[in-house]
């Protein structure tokens, strides 16, 4: 072809360049994708800055602090009895479980022990918190995979447990029920039988979830072999709870650490899974929820009689000392390092929350996964934003 004008010559060159571009590999730069802070999979306001190469995540960096409330500073100006109402808001799905380790730490420094009846009811409420918390996850995991039905079942059946918690504590979400030396109140009449009925419903719910999700081919394809975390990595990052047990570590604080809570009085089993993938994390939580209903059933049969409050002064001054108490909370290992200087309130409290450590593994586990898997892995790690940001 002969160019008759400069204009035609330029068009010809441009066309040739366009053709050539199709034949060479496209030069794509890394793209940064922001997931969140308002993404439904983040359960709140967690932002994940993911660097992508095509469909693959090269690096994912969680950015939090959108909901940091500074509890470690706030508890320094509160009295011991006022702290429980604050720490309720850390893991808002299983609120009562947040109060227990703090109260146990204060009791250890004070050398006070709650009477047996209080310990039994504490343990029951602790497990009810677990069921209320984890049952939502069991449904929510479906949403991350595009199955909307399970989450509605979860919200429906979780309400039964919340009703039981409300009947005894007066609060659906924030019980503020635990006291140094015991509990605020005794259980109401007829509560034991109602809770047993509720546990039957929760077991049905677990079966339902197993039918709906665990055997589902899509669920299996999306979760098996995705987000694998080996045991030694999980330990190094301080992962805890079901995430750790899904990596094959047979460790449960309820069983392995001596505690005033009465888990040793009942017959139950710690579930582990060797795979360490998203599926294993779901499966372990499902089994744990079912196991928790059995624990509650057994505990309900054996509540001893007696007072629910030890003799403690009305104005509580905790003597000088330090204590670190952890419990197996719904999300994992939660601990309070309480430093007391003999005042009305704690001098310093370090709150070790499970989700903070569980999410710190995200940069490690999200190398080389595909974008849709980011959501399923995040979902399977299961965190509550208040538990990260506290």
């Amino acid at each position, binding site marked *: 072809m002969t160019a008759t004008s400069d204009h035609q010559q330029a068009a010809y060159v441009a066309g040739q360049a366009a053709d050539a571009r199709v034949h060479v590999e496209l030069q794509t730069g890394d793209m940064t994708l922001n997931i969140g802070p308002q993404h439904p999979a983040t359960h709140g306001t967690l932002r994940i800055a993911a660097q992508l190469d095509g469909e693959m995540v090269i690096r994912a960096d969680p950015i*939090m*602090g959108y909901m*940091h409330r*500074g509890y*470690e*500073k*706030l508890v*320094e*100006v*509160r*009295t011991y*009895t*006022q702290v429980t109402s604050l720490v309720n808001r850390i893991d808002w799905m299983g609120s009562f479980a947040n109060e227990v380790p703090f109260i146990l730490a204060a009791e*250890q420094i004070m*050398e*006070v*022990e709650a009477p047996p009846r209080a310990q039994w009811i504490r343990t029951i409420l602790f497990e009810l918190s677990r069921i209320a918390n984890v049952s939502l996850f069991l449904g929510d995991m479906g949403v991350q995979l595009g199955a909307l039905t399970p989450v509605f079942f979860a919200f429906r059946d979780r309400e039964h447990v919340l009703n039981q918690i409300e009947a005894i504590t007066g609060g659906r979400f924030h019980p503020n029920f635990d006291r140094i030396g015991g509990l605020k109140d005794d259980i109401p009449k007829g509560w034991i039988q109602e809770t047993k009925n509720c546990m039957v419903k929760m077991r049905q719910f677990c079966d339902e979830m197993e039918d709906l999700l665990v055997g589902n081919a899509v669920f299996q394809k999306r979760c098996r072999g995705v987000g694998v975390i080996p045991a*030694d*990595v999980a*330990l*190094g*990052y*301080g*992962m805890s709870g079901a995430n750790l047990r899904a990596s094959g*570590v047979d*460790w449960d604080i309820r069983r*392995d*650490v*001596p*505690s*005033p809570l*009465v888990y*040793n009085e009942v017959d139950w089993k710690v579930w582990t899974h060797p795979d360490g993938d998203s599926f294993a994390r779901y499966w372990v939580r499902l089994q744990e929820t079912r196991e928790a209903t059995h624990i509650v059933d057994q505990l309900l049969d054996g509540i001893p009689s007696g007072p629910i409050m030890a003799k403690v002064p*009305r*104005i509580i001054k905790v003597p*000088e*000392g*330090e*204590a*670190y108490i*952890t419990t197996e909370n719904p999300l994992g*290992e939660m*601990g309070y*390092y309480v*430093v007391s*200087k003999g*005042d*009305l*309130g704690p001098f*310093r409290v*370090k709150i*070790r929350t499970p989700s*903070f*450590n569980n999410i*710190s*593994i995200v940069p*490690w586990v999200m190398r080389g996964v595909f974008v849709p898997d980011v959501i399923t892995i995040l979902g399977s790690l299961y965190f509550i934003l208040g538990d990260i*940001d506290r």
Partner: protein
Amino acid sequence: MVQETPDTESDVEPTPIDEARDNTVALLSEALGDGVIESEVKPGLDVWVRVATDRWQDSARAVRAMGFTYFGFVSAIDWMVAAEGRYENTEFDDPTTEVDSDGEQAIVTGYAGGDTRFQALARVHSIAEGFGITLKCDIGTDMSIDTWSDVFPGADWHEREVWEMFGINIAGHPRLRNIYLPTGFEGHPLRKDFPLLAREVKPWPGVVDIEDIPEHLQAQLEAEVMAAFEAANGGAAETAGGT
């Protein structure tokens, strides 16, 4: 339930011995030599070990080699008793007025001792032994400790928090950036001399409700309650009280 109460403690004559925890301290002393400065064992409950500042990272490697592979947390404590916060509105029992011979406020630290205002604090757990160990180290005037993130990757985020909340430099940390606070935040909130502004704006009324109600108010309060009760029940309370 392995918990001690004051009663059982006075009954048992020999002091209880915790072999596993004592053994751990001995092993750690062996590994670190004079790096272990002080330790405290509460039998059946817990163990605290204070190590030298320059051996902070070595102590992490040592405990990891001893089987304490399960990472807990890294944090810090500011031992200064400041006028801000709790003692802001009180004139009694103010510990900030207690000074030592130098005219400076004395620093009183907790278990396993310490000399400095800031102390680093870390917790690791052994799954085989079934208990955890709390490590501490003093932080001198250079306000710096070595990073643990080389040994326990989970320490990364915890140390970023310590860095922004206490202003303690973490030497060797890969990416010291704000984790909770916005970039460019001034001050270190968990230091004791960082004022809690909400308290300055509005004094906390919470202190009031844990004091007993004064007697003259008690009688008045009861009378008011009774009056309200009678008004609601149309004088039924009077007959009930009469019989």
